[in-house]
């Protein structure tokens, strides 16, 4: 189980949080309970199983919604 912090471009509507939240939670291998989308710091924090899903997959799910990913780190 790895922990990731993803820095996004500025989020402007609380609705965006809802979208990103459901998109990330929809990925197989992401620990649903751990997903936190922080509106003001425009960050996503989550835990995931790196056998099932990679940070790139998570990044892709977010950019597909139209949000910029500035950096994605995991450890």
């Amino acid at each position, binding site marked *: 189980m790895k922990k990731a912090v993803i820095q996004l471009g*500025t989020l402007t509507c*609380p*609705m965006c949080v*809802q*979208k990103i939240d459901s998109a990330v939670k929809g990925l197989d291998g992401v620990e649903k309970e751990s997903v936190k989308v*922080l509106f*003001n*710091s425009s960050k996503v924090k989550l835990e995931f199983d790196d056998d099932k899903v990679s940070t790139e997959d998570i990044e892709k799910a977010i950019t597909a919604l*139209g949000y910029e990913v500035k950096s994605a*780190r995991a450890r």
Partner: protein
Amino acid sequence: MQRFILSKKNQITLIGAILLVIGYIARFALENIAITNGAFFIAGVIGFLPIGIQAYQAIKVRVISIDLLVTIAVIGAFYIGEYEESAVVTFLFLFGAFLEQRTLNKTRLAIKELTEMVPETALKQMDNGDFEEVDIWDVDEGDILLVKTGARIPVDGTILVGQGNVNEASITGESLPVVKEVGKEVYAGTILENGTIQVRADRIGEDTTFGKIIELVEEAQDSKSEAERFIDKFSKWYTPVVLILGIIVFLLTRNLELAITILVLGCPGALVIGVPVSNVAGLGNGAKNGVLLKGSEVIQDFSRVDTVVFDKTGTLTIGNPEVADTAVYDNDNLDNIFAYIASVEKESDHPLAKAVVDYIGESKAYPVTNTKVIKGAGIVADVDGHRVAVGNLALMEAEKVVISDKAYEDLKRFEEKGNSLVITALDGELKMLMGIRDQIRPNVKKDLNKLKKLGVRNLIVLSGDNQGTVDVVAKELGLTKAHGHMLPEDKSEYIKKLQAGGQIVAFVGDGVNDSPSLALAEIGIAMGSGTDVAIETSDVVLMKSDFSHLAHALGLAKATAANMKQNIVIAVGVVLILLASVFFSDWMSMSIGMLVHQGSILAVIFNGMRLIYYKLR
């Protein structure tokens, strides 16, 4: 393709603006309908693209978003040939989002700067012994890191090699640098002002003290009060309801224009953004001024506080007691007596004993034997063939020391001045009386008056010291109540009583031994250094032991709470006016609706931004 369009949103907005201008010039100056319609049509189509894509992507993750409302409205406008409307609406929607992003960034700047105080990279010792620059995420516990002059220390760790002056203002609020040598702990986010050190990483990332502060602040920004959670739930259902309402209106009236106008007017804009904006701007102001407020619930509670309870030592006073008055009853032997007292008091680590040793300074050191410490009374020992007793009145009575009438008068006088008493007897004879006082922090009185002006009715001090001392402090500072002889559990008991009486209590303490009271009070305020305990148990952390921050914190909480209310009024007011005018006026259109809408969003953001510059007068 989709991603390309989304990444070029700003350019699309600009093109939309240019096309709109061309369209209006063509209409009013050239009076050329073909160019006008053409420009508006193209502007509408390209403006529609990013919005439509966002709406589609949201549906894919089962979210009905504002984008969807606008998308349907714009398609409807195209259908009935309203090219101008669709061009204006898409432009305003995109331009509004652009402005919101810019202004929101400003409200978040203070906290962002705080979080960026930890370096992104570190110089890590590799297997071959050389130091190489690596990403901070590649540093593990136990790694050895090199920190050079002027750099920020990237981890909590222990110095292995070298020494230097470290500025720890980011953790303790103290701006004077501290000297750190081998074996000393250093903290992430602090600055090495000179020297070069090698540090073993003990704690990294979110486990460091500074990491915890950042996490607290970041989560505080997004923490929600009950009212906000309600708004959130409300807005989740609100958008679909507006969509259904639009459909119903269309089915009933067969008026497509009215239906799509409702879709645009119904966008939940200012309502969902208003409160978070006030919250983040208020917290940002606090973070910049050394005040950490733990979220919007804390702001609400804090703004309603009517009673503030203080710990005395280390809170109202500096916490560093000093000998203030002395009376001598044997002038002949003074040097010897001082030397005896110092020798005995050096055996104790009691704060009063420390004050006595500091006061006497350099003196002959005698060997001390048969030392007996009597708890809550003092210390007795044999020095240089004499029996020396140093302590309070109870100890003197136990030692059967005769206290003269004059000495009694001195005792009374000293106590009235707010002193703690240290009496010395040599072989059962009274020799010396010392009055020890803790200095009140500078400017406390002025700051307490500010609290009163902000509407705090009761200022209460609770202390473990004797009642006389506490009374003096209370009188000098103009406090409403003062209670001495209190153990930590008595303090929390007292706070419970106040709460039972309906008062909303804030407790101010040093965060070390008062954690029960900090936790119990509606608002627990920890003064001074950002210790872990203080950060965890308190609701408000004052990074610097400066009292003026307390008044600022309260003023800020009140201003922020008021700002949230203003924003709710603006948001709800605008929606009501828009909906009313759609049914009862003939000037309302999609474009005007969108304009008012984006205007109200910017209004709440600008209103929130005022908090960034808030200063207590």
